[in-house]
């Protein structure tokens, strides 16, 4: 177990939405939980996010959007991850996501939607339980 490397997470803000408090708090919180976290900064296109995920070979991509553009942007990221052979990446998201959009997002391949009020501990626990074990084995 000790040989495992830390879980690597990319927290990304797709689109033009500038509300980054949640993304930053989750990024800093997951760092406290011992994960290696990269924060994308604002205004990332799905292409740029996927490129960063591939380059950094992350285990998890966390997407945040509060502007209502999540349906298009989140599914684009998931699709492009698959196209780039990163289909096994755990993709989670948060922001202002209306309840009615959640089934559609999960169908596209988003593993979980964490709305306002979620504790970072809960997100960290979900990540630990769901990230692919094989990818973390030390070599």
């Amino acid at each position, binding site marked *: 177990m000790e040989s495992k490397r830390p879980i690597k997470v990319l927290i990304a803000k797709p*689109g*033009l*939405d*500038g*509300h*980054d*408090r949640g993304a*930053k*708090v989750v*990024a*800093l*919180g997951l760092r*406290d939980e011992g994960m290696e976290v990269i*924060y994308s*900064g*604002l*205004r990332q*296109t799905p292409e740029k996010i996927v490129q960063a995920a591939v380059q950094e070979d992350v285990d998890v991509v966390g997407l945040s959007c509060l*502007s*209502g*553009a999540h*349906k*298009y*942007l989140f599914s684009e990221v998931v699709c492009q991850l698959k196209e780039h052979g990163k289909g096994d990446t755990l993709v989670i998201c948060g922001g*202002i996501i*209306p309840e009615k959009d959640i089934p559609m997002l999960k169908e596209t391949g988003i593993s979980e939607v964490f*709305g*306002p*009020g979620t*504790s*970072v*501990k809960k997100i960290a626990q979900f990540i630990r339980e769901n990230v692919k074990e094989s990818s973390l084995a030390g070599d």
Partner: protein
Amino acid sequence: MSDLEKIKEKKKLWEEKVLKPALERFKLEKSPNKFYTPLDVEGFDFLKNVGFPGAYPFTAGTYPLLPYTVVATKGSLPSAKGLVRAAGYSGYGTPEDTRDYYKEYQKRGLRGGPNLAFDLPTQCGFDSDNPMVRGEVGKVGVAVDTFKDFEIIYEAYQGELDLDKIASNFTINAPANIIIAFYAALAEKRGISLSKLRATPQNDILKEYIARGTYIFPPRPAMRMFRDSVVFLTKYMPKVNVTSIGGYHIREAGATREQDLAFSMAIGMEYLKCGVDAGLDIDDFAPKFTFNAFGGSMELFKEVAFQRAARRMWAKILKEKFGAKNFRSMLIRQPLAAHVGCSSTTVQRPLNNLTRAVVGAIAGALSGGPPNVYPPYDEPLGLGWSLEARQLAEDASRILQFEAKLTEVIDPLAGSYYVESLTDEIENAAWKELEKIDAMGGVISAIENGYLQREIARSAHERQQKIEKGEILIVGVNCFTGESELEVTVNRMVPHPYDETKREEAEERQIKKLAEIKRSRDSRLVNQLLSELKEKAKNESENLIPHFIECAKAYVTLQEMCDVLREVFGEYEPVGI
């Protein structure tokens, strides 16, 4: 023995004889309660610290009367609608959709100008046909690509509601001068003198780098744009407010109360300095500064003290640092005062947000603002408030004003040992932070080196840690969540005047219209205007607004103008966390 010494002695006695036995009885080391006495406001001087409402240092209030109570006293209750002025923030899908929305509301009795929300592509200087902005067109506000879009929106404002009879609000920052130019071009086209226009562009670019995030250019060229606006507006559009400085956004991004006050004041001072450096007399433009609703927590007394401290601090800055003589220069003018902020609302048991917003409205009333119940309770559920939530918010405001009579007395907490000491404490902490920013070379340097951004992220992170440890309690979120609690859900039954299905195809309609405009305009003229813009932008002393007006009339798009400026000014690169 002086009075204070007597109190000190009595306090010691009380602590020993009364408090100590109580603590022992409950096996407590320290009292969970505080009690304030004159000892906490030593040296308190009413005239110096508080003064009269509408008089220096404005701690008690910005005006001698509360403007919205005047309206109600005159017997025209419905026009007390000013209470929810901010709730009119609107902009849906395409300009056609937004025009129709306003027309519909006018049928229902809406008077007054629009408070326009722009979509994110517009706010960030992109056109609707840019592939980068797919999925964002017409969301969170109306899409505006060209002057044509302004012409369409304002078809709803003619005749009795023409541009010289209404006031418009534009939530726009980085491309604010282009939007101002669209408004000016529209007035010119309608034969209305620019001097008659009333409006408030948000035009507060510096907070965009630390909260909200709709920046385009780096801070220094962005300040050149600000200079253009303060000079142009003061000269040609004197009834238009120069800026609406956003303390609210900074708090929502995670800043503490003290950081919020210090950062907002630092930003405000930078804008004032900009006007003075451009050769303007402080009293000619400072009265046209406004603020965008300081506030943002559930702690009622602290929010009241915050408002009082902010008013006093801004007045001191204007008088002592900038030598203002006109009292109008020293006022914090804002549409609403204390409120809880949207980040205090919860998606869990959302009707509780009404209770929360009422607490904020009480703080608003007690601190000289309207008892504005904001935001409506369904704020965290998704884009746009339901009409039911807006009705309840408006009614709650009315109940506080007319039934609870909360607005009869101005600054009713003045002289309270607790509130006066809190007011001093918040102000002193903000001055200290302001000194730190000064030592860094001012607010622009503190943005460039990332200090403000890191401080805000740190505060947001600390708050989250406290919530997770249970040091900060939020009902229904990290406490009182057991199985015996009832999940109260809400239904949105009344149809919203903006049909959601329209938003779904807004992007397509807007792109189609833009293509048509690009086909039919004089493209030779467009190219010529754009190359002239480039030359003028390179010349630091040139004011670009007159040229933006020319570009507007030729239907040069917002992005075409911004792209030229991007080439000359560069683009802002955010700092890491």
